[in-house]
């Protein structure tokens, strides 16, 4: 196993390997999205309480899930980069951040769109939305730090350390916001606030899972695309990149 890892951990091999993989994964993403959307928009029944607006769940929940998942990938890749000084891991963290931030933003937008019919306002300090907002700030902090440092090595390692501190703090922040929410929440809103987990009827569960997988594969595609760009940038002083650029 280890030599497989070593073979593909070298940026050059990974660059070609990613190049082959991207079209296939893109195809899988399109298929999954088509199935998920068809099931979500046509087959799934409307919710007895929220009516058709429950269909927003098929975007909001996978996006919220991705925002958390990508931050884990960010922190994990950062940790590997910090401990084993694996250049590819450093690049993965740098490449994953903007994608994670976009999913977090999508989760916030769809959360607000989903809440509006119920709450009558575009934003309510609901525990999940607030945690999602703070997660967005964590992403923006990571990207701002990386942008502010010119030396790519220091940028990657500083970002990795920040992501590790962030990932340790996410449960604490979520717990604190949950506690804060129950203290200050007027009774009326909290009863509807369980948007994220209405009774999961199988016909709702399937599109949810398929959309979540579709988003994950999509993340893999864009991550590989960004990684190829990062590899060219970080390996710009090597022979093989020079040849690639000439061709």
């Amino acid at each position, binding site marked *: 196993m280890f030599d497989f890892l070593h073979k593909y951990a070298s940026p050059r091999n990974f660059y070609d390997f990613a190049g082959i993989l991207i079209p296939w994964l893109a195809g899988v993403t399109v298929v999954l999205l088509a199935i998920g959307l068809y099931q979500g928009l046509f087959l799934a029944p409307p919710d007895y309480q929220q009516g058709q607006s429950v269909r927003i769940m098929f975007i909001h929940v996978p996006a919220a899930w991705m925002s958390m998942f990508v931050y884990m990938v960010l922190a994990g890749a950062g940790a590997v980069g*910090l401990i084993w000084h694996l250049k590819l891991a450093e690049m993965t963290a740098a490449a994953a951040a903007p994608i994670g931030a976009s999913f977090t933003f999508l989760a916030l937008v769809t959360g607000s769109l989903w809440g509006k019919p119920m709450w009558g306002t575009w934003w309510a300090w609901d525990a999940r939305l607030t945690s999602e907002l*703070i997660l967005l*700030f*964590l992403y*923006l*902090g990571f990207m*701002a*730090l990386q942008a*502010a*440092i010119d030396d790519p*090595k*220091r940028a990657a*390692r*500083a970002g990795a*350390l*920040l992501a*590790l*501190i*962030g990932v340790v*703090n996410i449960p*604490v*922040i979520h*717990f*604190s*916001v949950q*506690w*804060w929410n129950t*203290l200050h929440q007027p009774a009326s809103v909290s009863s509807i606030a369980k948007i994220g987990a209405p009774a999961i009827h199988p016909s709702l569960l399937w599109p949810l899972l398929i959309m979540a997988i579709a988003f994950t594969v999509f993340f893999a595609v864009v991550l590989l695309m960004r990684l190829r760009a990062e590899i060219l940038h970080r390996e710009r002083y090597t022979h093989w990149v020079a040849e690639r650029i000439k061709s």
Partner: protein
Amino acid sequence: MSSGLFTAVACALRRDLTLAARKPADVATPLVFFAIVVSLFPLGVSPEPAILRGLGPGVLWVAALLATLLSLNRLFSADYADGSLELLVLSPQPLAVLAAAKTLAHWLTTGLPLILLSPVLAVQLYLPEAAYGTLLLALLLGTPVLSLIGAVGAALTLGLRGGGVLLSLLVLPLYTPILIFGAGAVTAAASGFSPEAHLSLLGAFLVVALAFVPWATAAALRISLD
């Protein structure tokens, strides 16, 4: 060896405290900032005692957060500029302990004065009598964590352009639990409830931060000086 460590920590602490004594402006600025920010709210919101009483704890804590943030660059950036930070990193003593010593010096010259000034400002915000004790205790438990987490942010952003704003963006999200339970404790005490739960959580954050954060600060310093 441990006696060497004790003397190294003692002289790092003494050095920063003498520097603070020699430049009192550095200590005074965050305090004045703290007072100004608090006095903005009656002007901006309303002088109505009922309103201010509701806002009080939150305003005090947000202002304390921002005042700590303002003073964080004093921690390492001067030493980074003149090269003495490299002495600290190249000392045979464990860097995490030396970083903790510098953070303690920062807290003594920023957090402690904030705590002592806060009751005066609390009077301006009509904070009920019952809450003063909790305010002091909550700040006593919370401000060291602000300094500790802030130290990691300061170490990560050494020598970067736009360091101050960047530092705030990195550190403020991590401050939210301290703000929630710090302000929560004072609000609970002000409305007659027991702030024990909040204070015990703040204490837990402090213990965990003291145990782990200095190592992160040391790692951040090594990364920045690489």
